[in-house]
């Protein structure tokens, strides 16, 4: 049987183009899906936090006691359960995107090349004698300050602060 190679090659090319077109569409679909689900999940978490807070305020008003907690473990767990389907969907979309597309690259898209030297002479950070002298002086100052800080109790202050839970840092007020 005679095989028309040109037809076969053309067929193969058009299949490749179709395949490329399909994978580009799939790529865009996955990226957009993950983006939309990310934004939805973020919004859902914010709304859930607000609803928990206002729900807690209502509960406090109904109980007539300022000691009534606004956030309870049960309420938080309930809110997380309600969001979990969206979270699972997001997770599934991310895993699919990672499997098909791999991770997003660190580097940015490189813009079109300009003419060489169009950026102007490039500023550089130089290493000179004056810089070395400045660095040595500042190192000496750092060591002196550290020693003074240890002697005047600054080190102890840091330790005391760090070994106690910073309630303000974690949002407890």
């Amino acid at each position, binding site marked *: 049987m005679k095989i028309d190679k040109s037809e076969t090659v053309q067929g193969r090319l058009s299949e490749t183009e179709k395949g490329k077109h399909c994978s580009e569409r799939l790529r865009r679909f996955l990226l957009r899906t993950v983006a939309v689900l*990310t934004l939805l999940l973020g919004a859902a978490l*914010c709304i859930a936090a607000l609803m928990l807070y206002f729900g807690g305020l209502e509960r406090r008003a109904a109980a007539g006691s300022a000691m009534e*907690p606004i956030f309870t473990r049960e309420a938080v767990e309930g809110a997380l359960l309600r969001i979990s389907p969206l979270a699972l969907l997001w997770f599934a979309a991310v895993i699919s995107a990672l499997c098909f597309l791999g991770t997003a690259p*660190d580097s*940015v898209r490189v813009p079109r090349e300009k003419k060489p030297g169009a950026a102007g002479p490039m500023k*550089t950070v130089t290493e000179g004698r004056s810089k070395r002298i400045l660095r040595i002086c500042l190192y000496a100052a750092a*060591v002196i300050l550290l020693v003074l800080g240890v002697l005047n109790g600054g080190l102890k202050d840091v*330790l005391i602060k760090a070994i106690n839970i910073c309630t*303000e*840092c974690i949002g407890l007020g």
Partner: protein
Amino acid sequence: MDKLNVWWRNHRPTTRRLVQLYAALLQNAHLRGFVEGEIYTGPAKAVCVPGLNCYSCPAAVGACPLGALQNAIASRANRPAFYMVGMLLLFGLTLGRVICGWLCPMGLIQELLHKIPTPKLQKSRVTRVLTWLKYVILAVFVVIIPLWYGLQKIPVPAFCKYICPAGTLEGAVGLLSHPANADKFSMLGILFTRKFEILVFAVTVCIFVYRAFCRFICPLGALYGFFARIALLGVRVDATKCSSCGLCLRTCPMDVRFVGDHECIHCGSCMGKCPEKAISFRAGKIVLKGPETDGAGRTPAHKQKGGCS
């Protein structure tokens, strides 16, 4: 086996990623804290870690430099903040923003979040202007507000209290997720709600924008940026080889004006891109890591994904 080798060569972590992981683990070595629901209270907590790592994280073994600085400023009425200034001076002079690119756990979290495949927002004039916001936050929330209230004997670590997502993520979520801390739920209120929303916002933005918190918000990065030109370690350009093509600036994911400026986190991704091989990682005049080339002077393909490797 060959396929596995090829896959590993394409996906293996860069040196910088490994250093980031080890640094994050070292700064959060008290993993038992997550099991017991308690923070570490040993003597190592007197030493500040160089990156942003909340000391209320159950795993944290050192103090957060930003939190300690705010408390030192807020208690200025009692004693001068010699220790904190000395510590920050030492970190800044030695490492500068190498800390941001190589040692900060929050930087690692942001980079991993950015790996999630979504359309990404590229840098522009808007992002360059936004980078000045962190200096405003440094001045207002880290210095002025703690000092103002400290003079009235009211300690207010304003950045930690009102903005820092690291405290909410590492401290609040880490501690409150443990049953032993169920009693702390009663203390949650509007402050936590606001901070949680800031955390969700920051995490969402970091997925779309490379290191958004680092570039626009983090006052620690702003502080270390002052040491950009005098820090001992960092990425430097050899002016004698540079042809001013600007490729390093265009491919840099940060909003740099030149390599090694106050926005540069010294990740080294420009090293492999420079056609003149003019960029290297240095400690003073000593070259620690130069650009890698194969026999034909090209950067090996598997190392072009960025970062020192």
